[in-house]
């Protein structure tokens, strides 16, 4: 039985660094978060007062919370479907036995490499009031469009930017899934007289379903957490008129601008719950669909 103990010792010594890091920087914060939600915490004085569910009550009565709620949901509802469809379509195009597919892939992958801060600055310049897009709109349609200072357009710029920079990653995920689809399925479809578009619809799309679940789930989780782009674009304010105020940005503001760490943690908990609930529901719906169809 010495061997048994030796194996246990080995296993835990190999895991130890990772376990310590997880303990200090994930588990302790998670447990801490569960307490902080019910307290009023002032980071400067370190004072803590138990206030029960007051943080949550304040959150739901707060118009800024509802602004961030609406913005984040709008963002998710637009970005996730569009990025999934574009990524799948591009992957199918790249997989269609063409020359230079590696070359196309190498070019199309570039936005994924770029940091959110560099990407945001590039897009801010593109959509700036004297930037390329505004000038093009003026020359082509004679319209003076102010993208970044217009509350109904600023979030759209962030949506476009996010789709632009996450599509290549998901495209590669789809591509690896496509390469696993057996050729025999396409051959059978050809014998049935299916054209390329029909093959895509009746072979590719159903065969990719598991990958699509994964892409949608990762897309949802990522989009709900959108922070960097909104922070940089609005200079941390979430403006113009709270139109780029996302959940994460509001959490940041509560914690570090308003110094209300308790309420910020409560809001983070609300966000976490929403992410869990939405990904759970979406996966249930999609899986049920797959079973029926």
């Amino acid at each position, binding site marked *: 039985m010495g061997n048994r103990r030796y194996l246990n010792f080995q296993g835990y010594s190999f895991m130890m660094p990772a376990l310590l890091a997880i303990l200090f920087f994930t588990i302790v914060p998670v447990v801490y978060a569960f307490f902080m939600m019910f307290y009023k915490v002032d980071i400067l004085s370190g004072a803590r007062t138990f206030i029960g569910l007051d943080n949550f009550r304040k959150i739901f009565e707060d118009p800024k919370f509802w602004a961030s709620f609406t913005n984040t949901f709008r963002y998710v509802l637009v970005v996730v479907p569009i990025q999934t469809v574009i990524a799948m379509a591009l992957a199918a195009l790249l997989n269609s036995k*063409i020359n230079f597919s590696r070359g196309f892939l190498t070019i199309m992958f570039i*936005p994924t490499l770029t940091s959110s801060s560099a990407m945001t600055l590039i897009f801010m310049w593109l959509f700036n009031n004297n930037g390329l897009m505004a000038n093009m709109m003026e020359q082509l349609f004679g319209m003076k469009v102010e993208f970044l200072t217009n509350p109904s357009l600023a979030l759209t710029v962030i949506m476009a930017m996010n789709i632009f920079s996450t599509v290549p990653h998901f495209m590669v995920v789809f591509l690896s899934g496509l390469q696993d689809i057996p050729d025999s399925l396409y051959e059978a479809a050809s014998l049935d007289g299916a054209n390329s578009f029909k093959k895509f619809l009746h072979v590719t799309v159903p065969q990719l379903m598991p990958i699509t679940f994964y892409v949608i789930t990762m897309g949802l989780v990522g989009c709900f957490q959108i922070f960097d782009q909104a922070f940089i674009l609005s200079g941390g304010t979430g403006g113009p008129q709270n139109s780029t105020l996302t959940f994460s940005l509001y959490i*940041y503001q509560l914690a570090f601008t308003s110094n209300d760490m308790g309420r910020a943690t409560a809001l983070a908990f609300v966000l976490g719950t929403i992410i869990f609930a939405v990904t759970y529901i979406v996966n249930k719906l999609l899986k049920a669909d797959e079973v029926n169809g």
Partner: protein
Amino acid sequence: MTMKKNNKKLKIFVYTLLIIYSIFTLAPFLWSILTSFKTTAEIAAGGTILPENWSLKGYETVLASQLPTWVVNSLLVALLTTGINLIFNTMAGYALARIDFKGRHVLFSMLLALIMIPSQVTMIPLYIVVSKLGLVDTHWSIILTTMINIGYIFMMRQFFVNFPRDVEEAATMDGLSKIGTFFRIVLPNAKAAVATQAVFVFMGVWNEFMKPLLFISSPDKYMLTQGLNSLAKAYKTATQWDVIMAGALISIIPIFIIYIVLNKYFITSNDQTAGVK
């Protein structure tokens, strides 16, 4: 015959779409490269696509700012973090796949649950932990809180599940200890998986924005992403986009070089950070 014709049409259609999307991908970058070589006066006036007078003023201004310090900061932090991640993630992945110790299934399920917690939930308590440890405004705040990644532990576990056992067994017979086997036999054989991990951990730290924003406050300790943001704030009002674009482009170059050299490790579905960009 008609079949062939259709095929040709289809191919042209596919190529056209791919070329359009590639141009669409490159356009913002080309536009910022062109902008970085313009003079501020030209940018403010709107003007032409190509610079009227090619100017290096943007780059000169950026290089005279604190940007070189931020590049060095990011480089050091990213390299150190990558090294630590490689060793610890690989060790943990190896243990989960190969060492039959008590509680490993429980640990695996625990990791699976923890990976699903969004970083925002832990962000504020993590800040408090970091400040209690006296790490606020030090680079260690980023290195230590990023020293492992559960996603890559899973990736390495998967790799070792499929890794042939006999290689290791031969080494053990030759009298190498488990830790010796790990460093001398296992790691070198896991080169491809380790390289994939290295590339993405490095890129993740290099591109990280939120952690530096929370933890680091002195401009001379800024990470590059954070520095870029402050640079943009300073130069935006004067429409000095040549300076901002020069900074943004310089920040992309190191990743771009790694991308060219290690291209095959980049284009995989293993990037654990991309979903949350």
